[in-house]
């Protein structure tokens, strides 16, 4: 009987559609990827991992509750105007779930547009920090870790290394940052942390793309800091490590941020990178069940996205997989509320605003120790991700710390102040909790 009960509406629907084969429900991910240009290595690793995970969901589970995931790519070369063109081109496709451009510049240029479209914009581990404030930015999600949390996580780690909160008193830290919107984002926060912990901070810019750093490292040599925090991107990172070695600055005293933490950053530096430590939100390696599934069900059958199998389980590939998990789980959470069907962008926004994955749930997903947990709420779009630190031994990354929590309470007032200023400038009404459940089905 149950079978017939289920069949009747289906048959009715089929009859109403005039016998045409009913279209399977699909959820579409437009991908603004970059596989050529100076940032091809992070781009191909990240989007490779993201696609691999979505593909795994389709192949292994038959989609999310039967809803197939689809995607198409547009090349941005990490350039803003190309990213905008791809956004304009792909946004008219049906069933757009969320945008993941992996570029602060492109994300900035999309905020107005996606807010009008009511579609989410995910900037995992990066992005504009004040978009953490969901009261002002309902559709923007700097998931896991925004740049301020990253800075706080690094300083907490260094303080613990020096024996506690007072350990950094009187020390000197140089922050070497990429000359781009991404690189400049944390300047005020390091000044604040320096005041709080009592260390002296010197912030030095490396002009994009960063393949010449002799002047900067000469200055670092004069400053004689206790640590150098490397906020690099792409080619800037290996050049920093080799130039440091040439100037006699030990790699063990250099701490990389989340965009200076990949194999592609250290391998070109060779010997100079041994002992270098970097922050990450997701561990590297392929000992996690989800990566085993990807290897067996995709790569062994020729369905994997990376052309080089050796890159499976590298930092960027794993970040892409974690990004896939977060996107897919947001869709799943939204489906529990709105039904197992193609959802609107706004419905998926609701899913992101309830994206709470406890360590137990992360384990169920086969990602235990790959990343810690996430706890997104309507007004906190970052979700309090934990960070960990890994050291390069010349061949692979070795985790050298526990999961560390950034000082969210310290950062929140600054984020709110900046978001409120943005709201005033743009004439945006600040949301309240009541607005969260007003969801557009289109």
């Amino acid at each position, binding site marked *: 009987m149950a079978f017939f009960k289920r069949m009747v509406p289906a048959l009715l629907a089929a009859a109403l559609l005039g016998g045409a084969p009913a279209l399977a429900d699909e959820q579409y991910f437009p991908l603004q990827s970059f596989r050529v240009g100076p940032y091809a290595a992070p781009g191909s690793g990240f989007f490779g991992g993201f696609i691999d995970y979505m593909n795994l969901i389709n192949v292994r589970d038959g989609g999310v509750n039967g809803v197939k995931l689809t995607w198409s790519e547009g090349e941005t070369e990490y350039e803003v105007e190309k990213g905008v063109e791809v956004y304009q081109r792909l946004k008219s496709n049906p069933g757009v779930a969320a945008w993941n451009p992996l570029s602060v510049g492109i994300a900035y240029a999309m905020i107005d547009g996606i807010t009008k479209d009511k579609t989410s914009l995910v900037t995992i581990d990066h992005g504009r*920090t004040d978009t953490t404030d969901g009261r002002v930015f309902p559709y923007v999600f700097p998931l896991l870790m925004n740049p301020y949390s990253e800075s706080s996580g690094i300083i907490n780690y260094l303080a613990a290394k020096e024996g506690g909160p007072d350990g950094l008193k009187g020390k000197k830290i140089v922050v070497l940052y990429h000359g781009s919107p991404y690189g400049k984002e944390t300047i005020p926060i390091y000044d604040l942390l320096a005041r709080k912990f009592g260390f002296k901070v010197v912030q030095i810019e490396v002009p994009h793309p960063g393949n010449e750093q002799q002047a900067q490292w000469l200055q670092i040599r004069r400053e004689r800091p206790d640590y150098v925090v490397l906020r690099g991107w792409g080619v800037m990172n290996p050049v920093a490590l080799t130039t440091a070695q040439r100037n006699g600055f030990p790699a063990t005293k250099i701490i990389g941020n989340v965009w200076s933490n990949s194999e592609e950053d250290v391998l070109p530096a060779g010997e100079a990178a041994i002992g270098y430590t970097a922050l990450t939100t997701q561990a590297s390696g392929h000992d996690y069940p989800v990566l085993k599934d990807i290897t067996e069900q995709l790569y062994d059958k020729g369905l994997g996205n990376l052309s080089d199998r050796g890159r499976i389980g590298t930092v960027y590939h794993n970040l892409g997989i974690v990004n896939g998990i977060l996107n897919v789980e947001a869709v799943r959470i939204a489906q529990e509320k709105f039904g197992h069907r193609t959802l609107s962008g706004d419905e998926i926004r609701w899913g992101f605003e309830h994206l709470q994955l406890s360590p137990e749930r992360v384990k169920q997903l086969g990602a235990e120790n790959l990343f810690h947990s996430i706890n997104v709420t309507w007004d906190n779009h970052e979700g309090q991700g934990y960070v960990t630190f890994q050291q390069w031994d010349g061949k692979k990354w070795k985790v050298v710390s526990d999961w560390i929590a950034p000082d969210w309470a310290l950062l929140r007032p600054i984020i709110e102040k900046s978001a409120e200023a943005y709201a005033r400038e743009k004439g945006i009404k600040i949301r309240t909790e009541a607005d969260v459940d007003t969801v557009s089905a289109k």
Partner: protein
Amino acid sequence: MSLSADVPVAPPRVNLRALGLLALLAVAVLVVPVIASPYVIEAILLPFLALSLAGLGLNLLTGYGGQVSLGSAAFMAVGAFAAYNFQLRLGVSLPLAIVLAAATAAAIGVVFGLPSLRLRGFYLAVSTLAAQFFVQWALTKFSWFSNDSASGVVAAPRLTVASLDLDAPQGRYLFALTLVVGITFLVHRIVGSRAGVNLIAVRDDETAAKVIGVPVLRTKLVAFAISSAIIGVAGVIWAYAYLRTVEPAGFNLDRSFQVLFIIIIGGLATIRGAFLGAALIVVFPLLLARTSSFAFEGLVDAGVLKLVERVVLGLVIILFLIAEPNGLSAILGRATARLRAVLRRG
């Protein structure tokens, strides 16, 4: 003395051509906003208009005046940031902000044009590089320009003229189109005027120009001023109407080269060259990407496909320049002449 022989525009049969241009304009104003999709406006027409205008400005200086400049993107940045700051700090209306931005760009243009009084050719090109680097450095270094925004990126204000809201794609398109058409008409008048003839005289032989009484120094500086002002307005369109964010990194040396290539490919010392060149630079890569993704998506590695596209784009540009070193404008001129001959015979 007859001017028309020296000036590529303003040919004898002005009426026919004027009619054609009017028809084109009517289509651009009346038909395009109605039928063009937001994608066509946002991703193709707006960057096309902004880069055409920048090309037009540079063509005045480089094509007509013979002064090579690698600082176009810097003047775009000056225009965009000046308009933003005038609106933010003085609260002036958008049209006034654009005029002030053009004036600011012109002033900076004159300053960096001063070396042109002593330098020529490659040496001048290198000295305009200074403008490129200095402006970008200053805008990044002093966060006052971007209203102390943490990342140096600012969101452009809403586009409103009087009480007219131009924030929709169509509105922004008409805003850009109005500026481009108005300025193109002005440039057309300038190159046909005494000043335009002086400019060409300076380009062709500076010494001879001086001998026949052309005020060389003033002509060069005026060319730098007008050219920079136009490129500054192009920067406003780029930032306000197209990207809607303003950031120094978007106006880097690559953009300067892009504008220079537009006029070389389109045709130096012609007005339509800037438009043809911008069309090739903006539209052709998109067409290529669409075609290749349509034909090969999923079959070839996406990264490899992109690299092949770049090779093809480079080859096409080289072929165009071999076929016609005077650019697309000359090719178009030959094509219309042939068509006219056929029509006359038929």
